[in-house]
């Protein structure tokens, strides 16, 4: 994995933001430094932290469930030819359906609470992760299986020493993409039927024309995404150091 300096990216974002602040209406694009100060104030003395915790709870639970079930489904489809014939066509039919459009149905079926929001995120990520893992499993070199056979590996040993490590890079790449998509869906899901979460916080302050607060919420959402992104990179660095 190539090492990179995150400060260059952060500096460029703030520079671009400052330029927009200077050349666009400063009321619509507040000063980045003031926004960071506002963010600190909102986190320490207001309820932004509560909104962030609600969002993190929904996002992390949905991603974990999507990863666990997606990985299991992908491995099952890749390793079992009967289930492959049954499940892969189903996944391919469902995958392109825009799940966000199913939000009203999800609300009807699962209520307006946290569950429906998490199910929406889960539904979008699950199919993507399942198919990515399936692709990774069927891409494992046949030689690896022959090699496992010559070593007389048991079924459990085969999964532990061959299948899982072979698909781990794909799993972590998919997790990274899923975080980005998950945050986008989270924002969308939190704009409906809730008064907690960063999506609600941002849209609420937008409607109240509190742009500094609105930008603080956006900044925090970005920071959360970035931190998770870097955490996944660390996992790659630690566990996929053989590429």
């Amino acid at each position, binding site marked *: 994995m190539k090492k990179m300096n995150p400060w260059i990216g952060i500096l460029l974002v703030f520079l671009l933001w400052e330029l927009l602040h200077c050349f666009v209406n400063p009321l619509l694009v507040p000063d980045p430094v003031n926004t960071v100060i506002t963010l600190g104030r909102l986190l320490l003395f207001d309820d932004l932290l509560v909104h962030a915790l609600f969002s993190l709870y929904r996002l992390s639970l949905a991603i974990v469930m999507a990863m666990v079930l997606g990985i299991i489904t992908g491995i099952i489809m890749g390793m079992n030819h009967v289930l492959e014939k049954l499940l892969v066509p189903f996944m391919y039919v469902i995958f392109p359906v825009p799940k966000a459009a199913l939000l009203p149905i999800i609300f009807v079926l699962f209520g307006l609470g946290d569950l429906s929001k998490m199910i929406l995120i889960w539904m979008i990520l699950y199919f993507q992760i399942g198919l990515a893992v399936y692709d990774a499993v069927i891409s494992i070199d046949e030689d690896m299986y022959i090699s496992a056979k010559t*070593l007389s590996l048991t079924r459990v040993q085969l999964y532990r*020493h061959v299948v899982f490590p072979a698909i781990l890079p794909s799993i972590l790449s998919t997790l990274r993409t899923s975080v980005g998509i998950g945050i986008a869906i989270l924002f969308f899901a939190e704009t409906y039927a809730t008064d907690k979460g960063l999506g609600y916080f941002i849209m609420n302050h937008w409607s109240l024309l509190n742009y500094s607060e609105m930008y603080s919420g956006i900044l925090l959402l970005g920071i959360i995404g970035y931190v998770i992104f870097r955490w996944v990179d660390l996992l790659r660095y630690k566990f996929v150091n053989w590429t």
Partner: protein
Amino acid sequence: MIKIDNLKITYGETTAVNQINAVIQRQEKISIVGRSGSGKTSVLHALAGLITPSSGKISIRNNTRNSTQNSDVNGIREDTAIILQKGGLFPWKNVEANVMLGMINEEISKEDKAKNVDGVLRELDIADQSEKYLHELSGGQRQRVAIARALVQSPDLLLMDEPTASLDMITKEKFQDSLVGLYNRHDITAVIVTHDIEEAVYLGQKILVMSEGRITAEIVNPYYGNPNIRESIEFYELCLKIRQVMKA
């Protein structure tokens, strides 16, 4: 002793190996040489218990394998190690872990396993590479790791499928020399499959020439074991003889 009786291997409509017979004595070093598609790899895989014969049988020690009898596969594999064409190593494991896998089902302590691995890596002169991953090694070093993984299994029978196919000429010769060293130090029966005639002659006491699924010649190599054989006229005369058999 290994006995191959009327071995036939088919893949669908295609016959890869067509009723061959051979006897390999204990501790004998055999080269199977032939063009691509001659069936040599199929014979090796059948010896390793990786594929089931369509008809005929293979007897290794007291274990027999034929088209209906699969129960002795583990008996065949027990003292057999195979080095696959591309090494069959796992890129996500470092050298030590790859070699350690050779003993995964052996009931000895972790310390003893580590000691065995270290010993074999030292013997093959790659002990200083034990922490490295495969992408950090040269082609020759990777093949040594594959051999190390085979050797820790303390096999009676070592099978090799074109282990030098991806190596340059100098690395290939060095690798062949280290194989001869191993042959001398270990009491093993070895079967190497190759399309390289010089390699077959250098590494084989007996050379089986295969063509279109059949053994077309069985040549005893009187020069086997001579360290300077590669520079002699006799060596090239024997190579030429095999070449003519293969072209016939």
